[in-house]
């Protein structure tokens, strides 16, 4: 019996002296990986998933277009809309928008602009095709359909 009693008397407190270090490490991780978002997205974004993803290396050469049903359906209706930077735009405004994005880049890199289309699952091809036609006119022909990585399946 005495043997068992001894065991219960062992101290079981977790040392907390190294906690700040752990917390700081996590803090630095998030500080480094974080990117403060400049625009608030006003359309639904349920991004589809795919397997054959490719990564864009140069973030400065990417321009984002968000397409989906507006979050505030009371104000803007249920039809999918295109959001560029902070505003909703119509397909006809895309040429101007793409030209502005190109002008912001260095001259040698203008043809490398990639337009990332972040399109909601439920948006229809019609509106996306309109956007693509305008991008062709603006000669911003590299596009990327943003997708997530699909979980491995047993096919």
């Amino acid at each position, binding site marked *: 019996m005495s043997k068992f009693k001894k065991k219960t008397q062992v101290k079981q407190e977790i040392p907390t002296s190294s906690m700040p270090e752990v917390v700081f490490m996590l*803090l630095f991780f998030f500080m480094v990986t974080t990117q403060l978002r400049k625009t608030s997205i006003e359309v639904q974004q349920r991004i589809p998933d795919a397997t054959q993803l*490719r990564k864009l290396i140069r973030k400065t050469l990417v321009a984002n277009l968000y397409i989906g049903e507006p979050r505030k359906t009371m104000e803007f209706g249920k039809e999918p809309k295109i959001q560029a930077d902070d505003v909703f735009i119509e397909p006809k405004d895309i040429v101007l928008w793409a030209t502005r994005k190109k002008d912001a880049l260095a001259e040698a890199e203008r043809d490398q602009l990639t337009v990332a289309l972040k399109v909601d699952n439920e948006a229809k091809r019609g509106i996306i095709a309109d956007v693509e036609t305008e991008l062709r006119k603006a000669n911003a022909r590299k*596009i990327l359909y943003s*997708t997530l990585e699909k979980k491995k399946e047993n096919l």
Partner: protein
Amino acid sequence: MADIAFLLLTFFLMTTTIANDRGLILQLPPPPEALPPEDIKIQEHNMFKIQINSSDALLVEGNPMSDVSGLKDDIKKFIMNNGADPLSSDSPEKAIVSFKTDRGTSHKRFVEILDIIQGAYYDIYADQAGVSNERFRKAASDLNDGDNRAIYEKGKKGYPMNLSIAEPTKGGN
């Protein structure tokens, strides 16, 4: 100390969005006006037709298809045919995958099929370059690196990605 650190940690945890610049890359054709009106005859057997209607139903080479698991292999077989089957493509250069959707097709379905088509091509490229599919895609993403460029060029040699995405038809909305 730990309190302040925790506060900062929570702040960054809440505001963080890990940037997601990944997806399916596509090169659009030049604007319609820039293309001279050519009358190119493409032989029927050099086209692999994939169509999706407004209710997301799939039609491959004229036949309805509900299970897409075999589609990738069909496309690969079509591209690599090299004239073996007279009803399939003559050569990888001439083989064209034609992908047509409707204005009412959902983006989810479009991406699903585009993923399969691009997957078929990447598989062929990776095979030719002697690397895995993942490695090839990684190489294609960063061509400034010498090794990557070598893999990319070795893989793509002789197999242009002839993917034609047609203007969607006006069916349902």
